[in-house]
């Protein structure tokens, strides 16, 4: 291949298109190789692209990519909800990190509905943001249709970046919390404080991350020689209200036996507290309560809530890094989560 550029006029910067033509591949393929993509490229093709890029002196130029992308210094964040304090805290953390990188964030909400998620991604893709971050609790079952995956791949092919937070249902790498280990450590601490009889509140919607918290907690109790009866795990609707209703509809003798209620999120722990109070139970004197997430906006609740801290800022930082970095191939990253003991679990 002896085509040379610049024969017929002034030199201009080497574009992705030039590389693609020289390598004899399509532009999307060249993009996948040089911009990084979860989609594999045939080794022989990859070689050709890399060689062509080197021969032409192509450099991945972020601003050129921005032009190619059509915009922008904007990142699109797609989250499950914002009324839930966890998600608004997550969104705020991402916006803080984005701001440090000189980026703007636009946010859209799916309410955990796959039809809305698809519609949103389709529309957002058209605005050509620098990256699309999908943050959620991750469905247990893989995504039922491939259409969302197709949209995301097409977006990647035009140079966009897909970043996942706590999503295990999509074929892209994700940043997650260590749900299992965090819950496990919390269970061990609580057993250490003398608690023996627990009620666990899980999620009625099958969410992998949430199930990991239940499994981890049971594992931690087992570590301490406490076997947990399966009927002491309830799966109410995944919400503050769901938790409250679950507590309110407990049999009186069941309630009397419970020493500590563990809920998979702080939001649900607070719903449980509301339910307990409505039954005349005093927290933490009669029943202790623990949650998971360590939501800052809930820091003024009395008594202060024992929970598992998840480093939202670390996750946000990693997400923004992935949204702004070329060439690196990202693998799953798990961010540590650790128990924080507070007034709601003083000990037996």
């Amino acid at each position, binding site marked *: 291949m002896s085509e040379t550029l610049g024969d017929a006029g002034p030199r201009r910067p080497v574009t992705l298109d030039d590389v693609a033509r020289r390598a004899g591949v*399509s*532009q*999307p393929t060249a*993009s996948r190789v040089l911009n990084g993509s979860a989609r594999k490229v045939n080794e022989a093709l990859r070689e050709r692209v890399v060689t062509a890029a080197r021969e032409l002196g192509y450099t991945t130029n972020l601003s050129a990519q921005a*032009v190619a992308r*059509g*915009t*922008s210094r*904007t990142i*699109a964040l797609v989250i499950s909800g*914002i*009324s839930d*304090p966890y998600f*608004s*805290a997550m*969104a*705020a953390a991402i*916006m803080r990190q984005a701001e440090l990188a000189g980026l*703007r*964030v*636009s*946010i*859209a*909400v799916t*309410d955990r509905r796959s039809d*809305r998620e698809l*519609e*949103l991604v*389709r*529309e*957002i*893709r*058209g*605005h*050509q943001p620098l990256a699309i971050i999908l943050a959620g609790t991750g469905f247990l079952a893989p995504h039922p249709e491939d259409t969302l995956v197709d949209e995301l791949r*097409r*977006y990647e*092919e*035009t140079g*966009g970046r897909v970043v996942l937070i706590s999503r295990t249902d999509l074929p892209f790498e994700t940043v997650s919390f260590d749900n299992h280990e965090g819950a496990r450590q919390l269970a061990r601490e609580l057993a250490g404080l003398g608690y023996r009889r627990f009620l666990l509140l899980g999620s009625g919607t099958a969410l992998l991350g949430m199930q990991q918290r239940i499994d981890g907690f049971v594992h931690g109790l087992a570590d301490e020689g406490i076997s947990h009866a399966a009927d002491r795990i309830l799966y109410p609707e995944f919400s*503050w209200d769901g938790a409250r209703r679950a507590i309110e509809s407990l049999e009186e003798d069941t309630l009397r036996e419970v020493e500590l209620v563990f809920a998979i999120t702080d939001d649900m722990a*607070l719903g449980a*507290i*509301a339910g307990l109070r409505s039954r005349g139970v005093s927290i933490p004197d009669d029943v202790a309560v623990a949650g998971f997430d360590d939501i800052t*906006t*809930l*820091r*003024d*609740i*009395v008594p202060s809530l024992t929970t598992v801290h998840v480093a939202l800022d670390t996750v946000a930082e990693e997400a923004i890094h992935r949204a702004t970095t070329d060439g690196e191939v990202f693998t799953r990253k798990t961010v540590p989560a650790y128990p924080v003991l507070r007034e709601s679990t003083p000990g037996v």
Partner: protein
Amino acid sequence: MSDLAGSVTLSQVADHAGVSLATASRALNGSTRKVKPELHQRVLASAAALGYSANVLAQSVARGASKTVAIVLGDIADPYFSAIASGVIRVAEANGLVVTMAATGGDADREDATLVAIKGQRPQAVILAGSRHIGEEAGERMAREVAAIERLGGRVSVIGSRTTTGRAVAVLNRAGAADLADALIDLGYRNFAIIAGNPDLVTAAERSTGFVEAAAARGIVIAPDRVIPSKFSRDGGYESVSALLASGARPDCVFAVADVVAVGAMAAIRNAGLVPGRDIAVAGFDDIQMLQDVTPSLTTVALPLAEIGARSLELALADNPDASLTAPIEGRVVVRDSTPPRRAD
């Protein structure tokens, strides 16, 4: 069809696939009209081969505006805004639109920059949910950006006060605060401190002024040094009340111009070794969702936040808004445990 030099256009994709422009559009942009599977596949293959992405600008030219509704709000973590957003989302959904949000941190300059960026989305509607700033300059700047968005086929709706012009949902902040002052005085409170938020923000200023004026009409003068500016946040409430109590002041009731500020105020009272409600009463404004977890339960002025959000979008989408859409929103005083009846001294 495309504003960007060098971008692949929908026409090119249609030619490449050997289909009409309409078919290509239906296949790629989503449509209730079905496209034959083999044509659909061809269009997708051509789009992929050419590296086409549904550039919203192209759609905008065809339709005048995109499917997007953009909400500009202050702080994404503030439950006041997420409640408003939920109402906007409900109406958007019913109209086949998608909602995006951007936060400004209450900064007028950032709002301007955000509006400039939002223009690129060619939104069908823009909801300005953050509080307006007092002052002519802010008003003119905003008016220019609003005009720019409208030129692109979008409509702007503002959640504001009685004095906001254009498509606006007027929240009667002043009257609500006045009603609250009356209710607290009826409960026996006399010695007030106001955590007043940012005095440059219309919402905060109206709530604070409404309270002071109503108290004055009842013969209670609230001294200027008891009307304390603060950050419009939980931390703002915490810091201001901590400083107030540290100075030796002991009001019998603290009015915070927003519930998030009131929550911070309660934490500061507790931190000073006092009991909120029993020792120092606290009242807020908004009736945000998180109050369900606050003890003692917080007295406030309830606003139908989701309804406000819904109304703001309905207003933007209506060609000829009728009276029901433009009626102002009143707050309703809700007395709870944080302001028990005060015994006369």
